[in-house]
Each structure stands twice: as C-alpha cells, then as structure tokens.
C-alpha cells in the first residue's frame, strides 16, 4: 500500500498499510522503540483504506481491514486514524490469535511473577496496571495478556496505552515525561489519547512471567476482597478470552491449569491508591 509500517509488540508482528500518510507517521513515531517483526515477516496485516478513491481526500474516512475482519466495522474519520489502526491491530489478535490463549486482561510483573487483572471496560484494569507500573512493577500490557499453552508462561503485549476521557489529564499529570499521541476528541469511545509504555516495559517485552494471581478488579465501591470460586473464575476467563474455543483442547488445558494453580480474587476499590495497596497486599500474602 502507499504508506506502510511494520513492528513487533511482544511476540506478535504487525504490518500496517494505509492510503494516508498521517496514521503511519503517528505509528512510526509512537512505536519508534519497538523492534521489527521477527524475520521481517509479520503475523498480521492491517489495512487502513478509503472505500472509494475520492474518500482519500473528500471527508476522508478510514475503513478498517486486514487478515481478519468483522462485517460491521464502521469507518472512522481520518483524524481518528491512529485509533483505527490500534483497533484493527487488536481485532487481528482477537480473531486470529492461535499461538497463545488470549486473555483480555492487563498484567504487571515483579520478580518473574505476574498479576493478571481482567474485567469489563471501566473496571479499572488498565488504570491499576499503569499505577502499579509507577510503583516499580513491570508493565506487561493493559489490553491483552498472552498465555502460552505449552509452557504456562504469560507473554507481554505492551501496545500503546489507550487513555480515555478523565484518564488523559490524570496520566499527563502522573507521567509528565511520557510520550503521547495526538488527542483524539469525540471518538465513538469519547476522548482518546495514546501513551507509550515506559522504556522498561518495552525493553523487557520478550521476557515472559509466571502467572501468580488472577484479579477481577472493580472500581467505585468501598474496598472489599472476595475469593472467586474456581468455576466462576473459569467461566469468566473463558468469556474474557476471544480464542478460548478456537484453541480447543490446548485452550482447555491452559485455562484449567491457570485456574487450578493461582488464586482468583475479586476486589472492589474506591480509588487508585487503595487499589494499588490492595493488590500489593494480596501479592505479599501469596
């Protein structure tokens, strides 16, 4: 395609092609410290394209395509092109991933042991992961965590952190030196701004970790901790995985092992500081 960029995030290589220069320039800048795909061959191809030739210039509208597509994906205006690219990359992972059990979870690591945090959007898994990273944990990712069925190890997927609405000024205040993408106002998901993970997260992204704790955080209520029974944890994790069914027996074995080997805990937390304290308390007690 006219403009193209390739990169690797954790074990996964992407090639992104675009009819427009802007989204590629943004990706190139934000992902400048990331390596190229292994052997130069990307796992997934993403296409950002104009449905009709004149749509390149006239009210330019970015269609999302690639190896894997969903029929109802709606286009985004060109000013949200970076968001389109990020969504398209996530979509390839959600629909195409087979090497790892893909968990919709954030993850942080310390001393080789990983804390997995999962929940619906708004539960605060992303916020908690970035706050823990500021406390010295290694940030592994805030969107997907990759569980290797062969080894039981968790692989990092530290893509750009997608900040939404109120999280944007909060992150800008907390990490004044972080590199940020453009502020994309009024996207279908509200205001969005992407933040580059810290240098340590990128440098260590090829180092997997042993899962140690599975957390189901929920933001907003008074602090509370509840153990999650195995069957409930199992079902919630199958629903938090886009490829559990597609992996077949490998997915079943990986998931039942994960549930059997690490404690699963639901926490309610009223604010970030309390949440961090709860997580660190639980880890200290392991």
């Amino acid at each position, binding site marked *: 395609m006219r403009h193209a960029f390739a990169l690797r995030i954790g074990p996964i290589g992407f090639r992104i092609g675009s009819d427009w220069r802007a989204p590629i320039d943004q990706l190139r800048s934000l992902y400048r410290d990331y390596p190229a795909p292994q052997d130069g061959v990307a796992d997934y191809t993403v296409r950002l394209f104009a449905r009709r030739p004149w749509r390149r210039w006239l009210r330019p509208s970015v269609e*999302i395509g690639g190896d894997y597509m*969903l*029929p*109802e*994906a*709606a286009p*985004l205006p060109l000013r949200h092109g970076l968001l*389109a690219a990020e*969504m398209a990359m*996530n*979509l390839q*992972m*959600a*629909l195409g991933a087979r090497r790892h059990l893909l968990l*919709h979870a954030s993850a942080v690591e310390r001393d080789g042991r990983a804390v997995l945090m999962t*929940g*619906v*959007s708004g*539960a605060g898994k992303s916020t908690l992961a970035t706050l823990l990273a500021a406390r010295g944990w290694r940030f592994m990712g805030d*969107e997907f965590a990759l569980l290797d069925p062969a080894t039981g190890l968790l692989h990092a997927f530290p893509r750009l952190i*997608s900040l939404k609405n109120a999280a944007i000024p909060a992150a800008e205040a907390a990490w004044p030196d972080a590199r940020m993408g453009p502020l994309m106002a009024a996207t*279908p*998901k509200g205001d969005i701004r992407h933040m580059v993970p810290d240098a340590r997260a990128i440098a260590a992204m090829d180092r997997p970790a042993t899962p140690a704790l599975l957390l*189901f955080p*929920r933001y907003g209520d008074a602090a509370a901790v509840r*153990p999650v*029974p*195995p*069957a*409930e944890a199992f*079902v*919630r994790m*199958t*629903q*938090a*995985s*886009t490829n*559990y*069914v*597609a992996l077949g027996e490998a997915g079943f074995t990986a998931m039942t092992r994960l549930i059997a080997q690490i404690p699963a805990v639901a926490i309610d937390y009223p604010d970030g500081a309390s949440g961090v304290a709860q997580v660190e308390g639980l880890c200290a007690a392991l």
Partner: protein
Amino acid sequence: MSDDTRPDTDPIETTPSRRRVLTLGAVGAAAVVSIRPALAQTAGSVLNCDIPVPDAGRAGSFIDAQGKIVPSGTKGAFAGASRPFKGEEVRRVLNSGGQLPGTDSERSRAYVNYIRRLQRGQGGFTCFASLQMPRG
C-alpha cells in the same frame, strides 16, 4: 455460581468411596452449560460498529412495536431509522435506558426490540452481539 463448597467425592468417580445422595431433578438449573465463543468483553477495543434499523436487505420496511419487520406503511409501525446507530449509542440505551438519538420513546422502544431480535447473518448482529457485556 456462588457455591464454592467442594463435593465430598470426585464427581466423576465411578465407584464413590461412600454412598452419597444424588439429586436427579436439580431445581430449575440446567446440569449442562456449554462455553460459547466470546468477543463481547473485548468489543470496545476491537470494533467501532454500526447497527442499521432495519438492515440493508430489508431497507424500506417498517418496524412494529415488538420490533418485527412489517411492510412499509403498516399502521402503528415505524419507518426505519434514517442512519445506522452507533454501537455505543445502542449500548447506552440497553444499559441505562433513555432513547436512541433522533427518536421518541415509542419509536426508540420499537427499534431496540428490533435490535434485540437480530440473529446471526442479519446486518448489525455482530455489532449487537458485541454489546452483550457480561456484567462484572
């Protein structure tokens, strides 16, 4: 799924170590639940989608109060929406009530009923399915 007590014996064991009580007719609950593919929880990160009402194959038809497709001009039914709804707009209405943009309450209810009835293969279904978030 809140019962976390472990059974006395391994439930698949063929010869139980001691005789235990078994209930055949579990009250109300199914004894078999199948795990289905899931995209829902990740939908926000992977998809910006539209739901046309009705879908392109039936454009021009009306939507009745129950959300069924009826011929254009049917009394008491509503013409289709002039533009597809965004996934996020539908999500808001499904989760917290209110009306779809550009509609009054009856029309919005009919449209939402239509969206709830969508099946795989129909335009908008994948988008609708992706909004069915399990409540954490």
